[in-house]
Structure formats: C-alpha cells, structure tokens
C-alpha cells in the first residue's frame, strides 16, 4: 500500500518532465484542460514537488518503519502532494482556493500526526488556525478579483487586472499577500512554522521544501496583477526583506537543529518574496525550488547534528587584507552573475539588488577561503577569484535558465525601477553582513536575548513535562 503511494508520486514526476519537454516543443504557451491550465511554471514546479515528495516517500518507508498509523501518514503525504499538484495546475479560482484550503488542512494534520501527544495536537491546531485565516484571506482576494474583472480563470484575471483602478486592485491583492505571507511563515507570521516540529522529520522536509513555497507560487501566478500595483509591490518587497533579515538573525542563536532550520526558512522565504517584490518572479521560482532541495536535504539529515565540535574563540573580525582580497573577487563574481543572468547594474533597476546579494555571498566565501592557511597565499590569491568566478557563472546561469524556461508565463520577469527604498534595503543588508562578519553583534546582550525570545515556539507546543510526550 505504502509503496503504491511512492510509485504514484514518481510516475507523476516522470510525467511532469515529459510534459514539460512536450510543451517546450509545442507552439503553444499552455494547454487548458477544463479548470486546469498547464504551462511551463506548472511543469517546472510539478517536477520539483514530485522529486522532493518522491524522495520523502522513499525516505519515510524506512524511517517510519514500525510507526503507528502508517497508512494515515502515507495517505496524507501522497494526498498533500496531489493537492499541491492541483494547486499549481489550477486555473479556475475556485479550484485554486479549494486546493489551498485542502493543503492547509492536510499539512496541519501531519503536524499533529502523533495524536496522543498533546503538544502535537496543539501545534496542529495552531497551524490549522493560521491556514484557515490564510484560506479565508485567499478566498476573499480571489472573490474580489473575480468580481472586479468579471473573470473566473486566473490567466484571464491577471490579463484584465492591470486595467483595474489602483485602489480596487490593492484591496483585492492585500488579502492575497496576507495568505502568501502566512503560508511562507514570513515575519510576523513565523509562529506556526517555528512551532511545527512535532511533525515527523520527513514531514518537516516536505513542508519546508514544498508547502511553504505555495506563498511564492501564489504571487507568481498573479504576477502581472501584483506588478501592476506599485504600493502592493513595495509592501511585498519590504515584507520579504524584513523576513530575510530577521529570519537570518533568528537562525544565528538557535541551539537546536530543527528550529535553526525553520528560522532559516523564514529568511529564505523572505528573500524569495522579496525577489517577487522586485519583479523577478522567475528567479523567485528558481529560488524556491533550489532552497527546497537544500532544506529538505538538511531536514532529512538532521540526525547528523550530533558531532564533536571544539570550542573556538570568536573568529577575528575583518581586516584590511581580508577586504582587499574579498572585495575585488566578490565584485568579479557579482559582475559575472549580472552578465550571465542579464541583470542590469547600470542603469540600475531592481535587478541590481540581486547582484548585491551575490556580491555579499561571494565576499563571505572569499573571506572563508582566505583562511585556508594550509594553502600558500599565492595559490589562494589565484584560486579565490577563480572559484568565485565559477560560482557567479553557475548562479547567473541558474537564474537565466529559470527566466528562459518561464518566459512564456506572463509577467514572471518584470524588473522595477530601483527607488530610495531599494537602496536602503541593500545598505541595511550590507551593513548587517559586515557587522556579523566583524563580530560586532556579539557584544549586544540585548539583541541576543530579544532574538532568542522572539524565535521561541508557542509555549503550548513545547513539551514542558516529559510524561506528556506520547508516541
């Protein structure tokens, strides 16, 4: 029985790949099947979701061996996969809303899979309550859009949306943004995500690799509508940026592996939503898929967190030589990224912000590689720019590929003008990175305690008494 579930998922994976290829060769942008519309985004996401789901199924067959209620577990896992597939293929708003609601319901069920464990039940209730709010918000927004445009299919709505007046569009889009923010666990809605570790490990893997992404998928599906409303775009951008920063900071102080991963998801989803807010929906889709692979792998491997670590003194701060090596290498990598992915640095549009993040990561990598004292300085001076140049090319190619694949999906790459706000956000991140790299944060007892407290799970989902835990 359980193996049949697994087989189903892999079959859909194969079908998604084949379908994607067929669509690529076909002269159309999408195939419509009743309330479904299969476009490039559908196939790309379907392949990604079924790949992760297939692995999670295979993993669970061994990992969950001997656990109670296995059929219920696999039934929900497979059900969830199918519901997500429905969501990414849905074109009719009603189907989209129903799939969204079903997804929340099933996911909450899996968070509380261990039904005899009271804290797991509370965690499931908490998730369910938030998903219910998200589903109602989504339904409201969709209803408003449908009424305002007189359309019920998503592709027709988004085609008509830019003609709506700004206020109407904003009122219809805000609930959608709320639904997306809850689903992605964005600050200040991260509570349910940080309280969801009562779920068996494979569920967390699938949740962080597939289900939190639905928020991004929602924004991408409505990309032309969202892009048409500048204020909403700014809100999306800021919400994402705030989560990206706070989630990263939350992750710094976590001493248990799963909450550390969850905090990192808050950050990554924030970045992905920020990409949407900059108009790079295709890049955001690439990000959510690649982050999904990354995070699923880390959750499934969470048992490896027991290891011998020697206490190390806080690493020395930045020095002149470090920056002298890092900055040019990072600019080189950033430049190559911008060139390959076609992001405009001058005249700058919102794409420049993505380049800033590439440069910061490259600078961090350069500093880390510079510390390889077992390799001679001369070799490092050659190796660092070379390695980073390659990384910049790979990264740029990834984004370019996603944008090419999704070129047929309306509005998925729509760079925005960069405003003062964008420059500020770039500066904040650069400053935050510099401060952390230099170890400045370590002096603040206030910041530490605030972060530690803000990223706690809901107290009622913590097993405060050992005997309350039940298998």
């Amino acid at each position, binding site marked *: 029985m359980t193996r049949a579930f697994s087989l189903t998922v892999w079959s859909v994976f194969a079908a998604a790949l084949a379908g994607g290829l067929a669509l690529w060769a076909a002269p159309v942008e999408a195939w419509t099947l009743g309330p479904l519309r299969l476009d490039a985004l559908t196939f790309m996401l379907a392949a990604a979701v079924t*790949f992760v789901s297939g692995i999670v199924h*295979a993993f669970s067959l*061994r*990992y969950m*061996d*001997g656990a109670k209620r296995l059929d219920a577990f696999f039934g929900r896992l497979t059900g969830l996969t199918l519901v997500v597939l429905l969501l990414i293929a849905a074109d009719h708003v009603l189907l989209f809303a129903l799939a969204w609601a079903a997804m929340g319901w099933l996911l909450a069920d899996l968070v509380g899979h*261990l039904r*005899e464990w*009271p*804290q797991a039940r509370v965690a499931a209730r908490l998730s369910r309550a938030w998903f219910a709010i998200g589903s109602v918000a989504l339904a409201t927004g969709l209803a408003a859009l449908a009424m305002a445009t007189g359309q019920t299919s998503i592709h027709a709505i988004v085609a008509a949306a830019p003609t709506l007046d700004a206020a109407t569009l904003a009122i219809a889009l805000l609930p959608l943004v709320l639904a997306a923010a809850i689903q992605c666990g964005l600050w200040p809605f991260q509570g349910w995500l940080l309280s*969801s*570790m009562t779920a*068996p*490990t494979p569920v967390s893997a699938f949740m962080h690799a597939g289900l939190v992404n639905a928020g991004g998928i929602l924004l991408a599906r409505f990309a032309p509508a969202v892009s048409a409303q500048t204020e909403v775009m700014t809100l999306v951008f800021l919400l994402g940026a705030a989560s990206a920063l706070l989630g990263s900071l939350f992750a*710094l102080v*976590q*001493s*248990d592996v*799963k909450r*550390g991963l969850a905090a990192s998801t808050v*950050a*990554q989803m924030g970045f992905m939503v920020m990409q949407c807010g900059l108009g790079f929906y295709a890049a955001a889709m*690439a*990000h959510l*898929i690649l982050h999904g*692979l990354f995070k*699923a*792998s880390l959750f*499934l*491997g969470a*048992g*490896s*967190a*027991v290891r011998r670590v020697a*206490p190390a003194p806080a690493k020395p701060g930045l020095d002149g030589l470090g920056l002298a090596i890092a900055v040019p290498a990072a600019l080189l990598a950033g430049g190559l990224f911008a060139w390959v992915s076609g992001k405009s640095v001058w005249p700058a549009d919102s794409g420049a912000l993505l380049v800033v*993040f*590439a440069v*910061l*990561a490259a600078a*961090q990598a350069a*500093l*880390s*590689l510079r*510390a390889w004292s077992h390799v001679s300085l001369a070799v490092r001076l050659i190796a660092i720019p070379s390695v980073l140049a390659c*990384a910049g090319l790979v990264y740029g190619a*990834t984004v370019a590929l996603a944008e090419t694949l999704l070129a047929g999906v309306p509005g998925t790459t729509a760079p925005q003008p960069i405003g003062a706000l964008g420059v500020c956000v770039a500066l904040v991140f650069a400053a*935050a990175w510099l401060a*952390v790299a230099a170890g400045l944060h*370590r002096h603040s*007892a206030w910041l*530490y305690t605030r972060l530690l407290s803000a990223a*706690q799970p809901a107290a*009622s989902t*913590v*097993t*405060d008494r*050992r005997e*309350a*835990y039940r*298998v």
Partner: protein
Amino acid sequence: MSNETRISAQIENAAAHLTPYWPLQTFIAANPLQGLEHLSFEEAVELGADLFRGRGYPTAEMARTAMAEGRIDRAVLTEVAGRHGRPELVERLTQGRAEAAAIGEAGEASRVNFLTIKWLAAFLDEGQAAWPMPGREKGFWRAFKTLARHDPSIPQRRRLAPLPERPLAALVALMRDVPEEEREAWLTAHLVALSGWSSYVKWRAGQSAHPWQRVAPITLADYLAVRIALAWLLDEPTPALAAQGTAVPEGAVWLEAWEESYRRRLLDELQRESVAGSSCPQAPSAHLVFCIDVRSEVFRRHLERIGPYDTLGFAGFFGIPIAYRPFGESEPIASCPVLLTPAHTVPDAPACGHETAGEAHLHGRRHIAGGKTLVQQLKESVATPFAFVEAAGGVFGLAMAGRTLQPSRFGRLLARLRDAVSPQASLVPQIELLPAGEDPEAATGFSEAERIFYAEAALSIMGLTRGFAPLVVLTGHGGATVNNPFASGLDCGACGGNHGGPNARIMAAILNDPQVRAGLVARGIEIPEATLFLAAEHNTTTDAVEIFDAQAGKAQHPEAFARLLRDLAKAQAAASAERCRRLTQADGDSVAAVAERAADWAQVRPEWALAKNAAFIVGHRDLTRRLDLEGRSFLHSYDWQADAEGKALEVILTAPMVVAEWINTQYYFSTVDPVAYGAGSKITHNVVGTFGVMQGNASDLMTGLPLQSVMAADEVPYHEPLRLMTVVQAPVARVEEIVRRNTILQTLFGNGWVALTVLDPETGSLVRRSRSGTWLPALEEGAAASPAGDPSGVAAHGPLEAV
C-alpha cells in the same frame, strides 16, 4: 555550618537521585535508577514512579505477547503467581485483552519548565548555534541574570538584579521561606521536574576537563538558582512529586516468571555442557579475542563452526586505560570504561617511511575541513545564504537523491572522494613513552614496565596464558550507521562509546613488543616467537571484520592468515543471515542487505545492538561453545584454575559485570517505559546543542535509548525486559569471598538488580545466591531470587550463610 554549605549539601543529596547523562557523542549506558540502587529493586521502581513518573515493570500486554510466543512458561508463571498469592494473574495473561492506552493531556502548562528549557538549551550549547550566548564564561546563573532583564517573557524581571551574584548565595535568598526540613525534598522536586536536563547538568558539573564546561561552566547550584528564581518571579508552585504507590505490582510477578522461564532454560543447558567434554579444537590455527558484548557471541559461534578457531571474551578496551589521540587531532578521546580515568595518552602517527603520505593525508583533511567551514559560514551568516542556496541547491538535491535512493553506492562514492582528497596513510600507535617537554601530563605512551604490566593483566584475566596459536587476533568493535544521533550507542561501551580498533591496535603492538615478551617470561607467560598478535575491528552492524595489519599476517603466516580471511568472510555471511532473520526489510543477499542498512541515512534500526541481553557468563568457552545463545549473553572468558586467589574474577565482577548491569538496566527501563526512562521515538527527535535530543519543538532532554532501539514497532517490544543474570564458573567459596569484599556486588546482588548463579566446577553443583546471601540449588522449584512481596528479599544484607 553556614547557610550556603548547608544548601550545597542539600543539593548534593537531592541530586543523588539522578543518574548523570553522558553526551551523545560518547553514549554511555546507565541505569536511570542508578541513584536508587541502594534500595531493593522493588522499592527503587516504586520511588522511581514517584520521582520520574516512570513505569518499572513490563505491562500486561508485553507479558501476554511473551506468553503467547512461549517466552513465559505457563508452568513457571503458575508457580511464581502462586508463591505471590496472585494465582488469578495467570488467567489475566491467557484471557485478558489489551487495555486502551490513556491519551495524554497537556495538563497545567509549566512556564518555569518552558523558560528553563529555553535558557538551559542556549547556555549548554556545544557548538550548534552560530552565535553562542554572550557571557557564558561567568557561569549559568550570572549569565542568565545579565541577559534575563531583556527577556520580555519573564515577568517582574527587574527583581532579579538585587539577587546575589553567586548562585549559592542567591539560593539562600530564594529559599528563605522554605522550612529547613523540607528543603531537600523541595530541591529534589525542582531537579526531577526536568530530569533529563538535570542529569546532563549533573554530568557536566562533574567534568572539569570537558572543553565546553570550561567555556560555559555550570553547577547544579547555578541551574537550581535559575529555575527557582523563575518559579519565584512567575509565582508557580513547586512541582509536586507524584505519589502513585504501586500496590503489590502484578508486573513484578510477570517479570519474575519471564526471567525464570529464560533462566531455567539457559541454566539447564549450561549444566549439561559443564559435564560434557571439552569441545576446543586441538591446535587452533588462531585465537580470536572479542569484546564481551552480546553481539560478539553470534559471530564467535559462526566462526568456530567454520574452522579450527578458539575464541575468547574480554572487555573490548583490552585492559588499557587510555586516551587515544587520532592522527592530526589535538584533543585525545578517552577510550576506556567510564569507571576508569585514562592514565596514558597514545597518539597515532604515520609508520616509519610513511611520513610524506601522512602529510598528504593531513593536507587533504584540511581541504575537507576548510570546505565544511566555507559551507557553514555561507549558510549561517546574514545575507549570504540566499545566493548560496541558488548556486549550490542542485548539489544538495543530487546528494539527497543519492543518499535516499542508492545509499550503499552513495556511501562508497563519498568514501572514494574522501580518499582521493585525503589519501589514507599507514599509521602506527606510539606506545613507547615519549616525554613532552617539562609537563609530565603531556607525556605519551607507556614505560616498559607499564607495558609488561598491562600485557600480563590482560592475558591472565582472559585466561590466555599458554598454548598460544600462531595467530592471536585482538578484535575491537564498533557500529556503522549514518545520520543517527545514537551512533555511538552502537560502539564499544568498554571504550567509552568509541570504536574499539585503536585499543586493539595498541594492545597488539604491546604484545608483539620483544621487550614485553621477555618481561612476560619472567612472570611465567611464555609467548612463542612464532605467535603474532594482530589487531582487528568487528563491525557490529555488518559483521565484517577488518584486520588492520594484514601485511604482517601475510608475511609471517601466509597460509593460516589466508584461511583466516576466508573464514572471517564465511562467518560474516552466516552471521548476516542470522541477523536478517531478526530485522525487517532485509531480504535477498544478506551481506548486501545489512551493508545497505549501515549506509542508509533513513534507517532508524541499523542493527539491534545489545537488545535482548539477559545474561553475563563468566567461564571457559567449553561451557558455551556448543550452545546457540542467540546474542543475548555477555561472555567473559575465565580460567578458574589459573586464578586461585580470585583476583581476576574480582576484576571481572566489579568492572565488566557492573558495566553490563548498566547496559542491562538501560535496555530494561527504556523498554518498560520508553518515555520516562527512554528517549521516545526517533521520528520526532530534535538534536539540541550537538549533545542530546529533545522531542518536537522543545522538551526535557530525552535520556535513555530511543524507542526504535528496543521496539520492533511502536507497540511491539523487541527487547525482552529481563534483569541480568550472572553465571560464574568458579568455586562457590571463592565467589562468596569476592562478594563479601565488594560493597558494589552486595548492592547489586543483595538488592535484586542482578541475579548471581554459580556453576561450581569442583562439586558440579549449580547454585544461586538469594538476596539475603543464602546459596540455594538453582534448578529446583522456588529457587528463584526472592520474590517481590517477600520481605526477606527486600532486606538487603541479611546474614551470609556459609556454603
């Protein structure tokens, strides 16, 4: 006596209820009721129910299954139940139905527990968080006091500031209103409220050499000061100890019937074997020494059936109390039982002529370490993880697919990559004494006299002092598993939860040393020049035995060595086939199937480890060679004729047997209560601080074994929860003398934690020692260890009667 001294003593008394908990990096089995061993088993279990809210006996459901499977003998149950005056219990097992398990309720949530977990997990962290708690070097109480004033979830936190800086002084202030006579119980209640975390604090407070204790020092007083201050600020009542007071527990009857059923069968077989002639091969082509671990028994049995080999059982650290320093590491690893403190540090270094290869190996390791740091820093910093996942996500996805879909292949691929970057170098343990400058502590190795001493002690305790085969293989052991927080639980307990290979290599080097052999001659042990000691490691997950110094074996005894390799492979196949019968999902080629489990990151039961352990047999292999002991017995070799004074036996009973009791009680309690005494299910484990696991979002530190180590499925036990029975092949008077000399043995035997049976080779009698110290025939009805309800059994140290 000052207030502080008094409170300090009260804390110590309160903490005596707790068993220190070792970090998972070096998993050490322990009796969760170790602090109550001075009580009889029955009293301890009852007090354990009050303190830890734990169940201490098998459930009716477990007993019913055992009965249905024939593991509880109906006749024995009838007899035991009758003796306890509870004959109706027999029917309960044959007719009753399973009671529905109560569904857990959250109860009144404890904010104090929630906040204690939050702060403790952050303070104790041993390298998980990128940003560790600031000010940890000042100790837990002071660090907490400094930071807590910024914690919005602590009400009235301003009131913390005026409290004293020293934890004991703070406790004096905080406990002003607690009457003197109630304080100990009051502190106990606070300690057991989160017994797992308290147990870890108790361990760490006693480890001044633990590197993290130096970085973040904590004492029980620190911990209690924080906890009690929180309770004061939150105005939360002191947690009440449950008073469940189990009546004449039916579980005790089932336990005894179950134990008796197993023991009588085993004793019957042993008695028959004791009078049968020797089954030892005339001139064995090799001696193989294995650890006493129950898993060795399976492999030894198969190997002996395949060829002319004689095997022995000895504690897997081979009697050397060492800290082993792997090549290129700075911190040595204690590789001996935790009862001992390492007395020597032994480093590994490249063999003569392999120095360049050693350098290349280290250089490659630095690349790997540097790569890990790079990934770590990109993942952890602010603003950098985003571009990183887009550039590297695909690699993670491929690795995830490989690990999940082709675990063995992926594991081999990784190993090949690692070897390509950092090629293996031939290493030799440095056993010679090597002073390191002025500091005598920094010296490594052994002096010649020490080497001779350890060699003699090991050989005489294992009873191998004459008739050496041309090859003597010292076989350490270790498990193989990935992505498993409890990995070190599969390793050698005698080596402190580490792989036993290094100890075997060091002992083999000592025994091959010409100076040592010359010294041994003077002590009456003559090792023929042709005899070669080899070191090996038994992989207990796959049953592969790897011989470390194969070149020497091939050179000196080519034929015998080639045959040994062949036979080890055959024994591996046979042992794997036996293993597959006990594991689910392992079908087809059994050697490949068990290898797949060892490499599989999704595997929660890579092997059964020491599950089903129930007996500790001390005696000659002749006693057990023809028996199939089903991997349930610790086997310690002992030659009663070569130990007239009983010195070797005393060591065996007070060291390896005590460790076996820790293991046995850990398995016992983790099975009868997987929540209070075990770590619960792995599927929702959350590793905290790199050293322990919590359940779900956060919880008590889950001590003990995970459910998957003792249960075949959530509600189906695999381990049979039986207390250990020790069987000694030696004259009764000698055993009695040793028991009288050692308080620990009087405690364990007198309080019913371990049962003692003696097979007296001089008289041929088989006798048991009752808890009161009387020797009774072992195989007659009613000869069981004193039953639970029998007051004479509870009186721990009754008058000892002469035999």
